[in-house]
Structure formats: C-alpha cells, structure tokens
C-alpha cells in the first residue's frame, strides 16, 4: 500500500520545514511509488540506480516543490527527467526479464495515469517510441531492433535520439 496524494503533500511540507521523521516516511513512500512508476519502463538491472538517483534529486531539489500544488505531478516530473537521463546512458543490458514484483500497481489511479511514463512515450511518434522501448528498455541491440522494426540501423539511432529529445521537451506535458 502506497500513501495517497494528500499524505505525500503533508509529509513534504513537514520535510521542507526540517522534520526528519516525516522526511524519512516521505522518502520510503517515494521509493515505493517510484519503483512502481519505473516498472517496465527501464531494464530491471537499472531500476535500483534510477530510483536512488531520483531520490537524491528529490532531496537536492526539495525547495522547488510548491506546497500549494499536488505532490505527485512534481515527483513525476523529477522522475521523468531522471528516467530520460537514464535512458540516454543505457546502451545494452544483459538482463531483459521483467520481475513480476515490478509490475505497475498504481495508487491514485487518475493522477498516476496523467503523469505516467506510458503517456509520455505516447506523445512521440510511434516509430520513435517503438525503438526506444526495444533498445533502451528491453535491452535489444541496434541491429536486433532494426531487424524487428524494419528500420535501418542508422534510422533506429536517429529515432532514438529524436524521441528522447522530444520526450525531454515534453516532461511537464500531461
């Protein structure tokens, strides 16, 4: 069970004021939420690093949270930023099996749907989203992705580059 939006918001307001107990609870809840948020959207081998990098960003940028607004869209924007950054770094991973426990189990369904990574991927052309999923998330090589999609190897690279660039410009879009 993950905390709801209002609990997140209240914990963050207390954390901004320096309450360590609330901050600890907040980070634990964020960790759980992010783990589900990134599920199936990054290679399982990279998920620990991505979650931890996002938590560090949450810590470093906590002053940028506006307490009059909802918390999860803020957390999702930080998460999307780190996710795209992480996809840029990933070229090939050995593991391509998704762990069952990482399957998305969103709380606050409406909010999560609006801020989801799936929605962000859906905002870019399908050919770009497809090769990003194959190479950056599922871990296929450029050659394998080219064979699977019928795109040339150079087009796969170009589409990955363009897709990531486009997504990074759309991080705050719903």
């Amino acid at each position: 069970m993950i905390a709801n939006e209002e609990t997140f918001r209240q914990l963050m307001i207390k954390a901004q004021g320096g309450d360590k107990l609330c901050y600890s609870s907040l980070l634990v809840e964020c960790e759980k939420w992010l783990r589900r948020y990134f599920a199936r959207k990054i290679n399982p081998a990279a998920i620990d690093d991505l979650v931890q990098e996002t938590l560090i960003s949450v810590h470093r940028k906590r002053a940028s949270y506006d307490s009059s607004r909802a918390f999860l869209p803020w957390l999702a924007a930080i998460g999307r930023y780190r996710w795209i950054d992480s996809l840029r770094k990933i070229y090939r991973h050995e593991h391509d099996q998704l762990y069952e426990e990482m399957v998305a189990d969103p709380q606050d369904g409406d909010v999560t749907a609006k801020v989801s990574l799936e929605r962000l991927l859906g905002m870019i052309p399908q050919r770009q989203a497809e090769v990003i999923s194959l190479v950056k998330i599922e871990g296929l090589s450029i050659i394998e992705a080219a064979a699977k999609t019928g795109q040339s190897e150079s087009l796969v690279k170009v589409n990955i580059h363009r897709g990531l660039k486009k997504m990074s410009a759309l991080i705050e879009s719903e």
Partner: protein
Amino acid sequence: MSGSANHLIEGLVEGLEPVRTLNPKRGLAIVGGLTLIAGIAVATMLGVRNDLMIGMADEMFFLRSGVLLMLGIATAITVVNMARPGVGKLSRGWIWALITAALFPLTAAIMSAINMPPAEAFRPMEGLKCLTVSGIAALAIGSGLTLWLRQGAPTSPERAGWLVGIASGALGAAAYNLHCPFNDIYYIGLWFTTTVVASAILGRLVVPRLIRW
C-alpha cells in the same frame, strides 16, 4: 526495499535542513531590478532620447517599448515558473508574445520587399552600438536569471536556455530603447531583432549546461 536504498534514505534524512521554498516572485524581482539598473545606467551614461526628455516621444517609441517589455516579461515569467516543475504545468503563453514581437521584423521585411530602402536606413554604426549596449544589459539580466534558476529544477534545460536568452535580450533592448533615437521600422526590424535573436542563441548555447541537474 533494498539495503542500499535504506542506507541512502538514512543518509538523506541525516542531512536534512529546513529549506525556503522557491518563490517565482523573487526571480521576477531579480529580473525587474536588473532591468531597472540597466535602464538607469543607459539613461545616465548615454542620455535619454530627446523627444522623451521633452515629453513628446514618438508613437513608435511606445510601440517598441511595449512589445519589448511584453516579450521580456512573458518569457521571464515562463522561466521562473520552470524552476518549480510539475507534470501538467507546461506553459506556452510566451509564444504569443514572441509572435507579436515578430511583427516588427516581418513588417520591415515586407516594406523592404515593396520598396528597398537605402543602405543608410539601416545605420550600421548606430546599430552596432545598439547591439553592444543592449547585449551588455542582456548579459547582466540573463546572468541574474540563470543564477536564480540554478536553485530550481527546470526539466527542459534547452527550452529554459532559449527563454532566458529571449527574456534578457528583450529586456536589455528595452533598457537601451530609452536612449535609441531612431524610429524607422527598418532600423528596429534589423537591430532590435538581431539583439533578441543573438541573445536567444547565446542563451541556448550557454544556459543549459549551467542549469542541468
């Protein structure tokens, strides 16, 4: 939760200090203050244009001032709001101000196509002075805005770079505008536009690497 995540959370909690939340009004105050200082510096060092001094400024002065200020303020507001991210917050209002400002170079281009003006109309020496002074003012305003933005979490550093450049270029040009005595559309369409475009390109090239997080 993994052991390393536990350790990380313990470390982050240990290092927690109270923070003052980012307020976009403070960012705007910095931009406004620097623009005011640039305007005062231009008026003191170069002087205010004569028609403005005697209270009979040409209508083009007001049009130009209004468009530059509107563009500068609209883009600066977008930039300071980018410091506090959130899915669903993407703002595109500044595009309308940019389209309005583009009427100056567009009109100059159409007028030139209809009736090519003499080369003197472009006043290259005065134009370079406009570019230099506006550019220095833009640099000061853009630096202040960038330093403030570094505290925030802009999720699109490239877009932020463009917008910092446009905002500081437009406001820097608005400061120089107090001195600039020329009212013809060719001059404004060329030199004021060049100032904003050059500042935008510089912003795109320099700012993203300073605000990435």
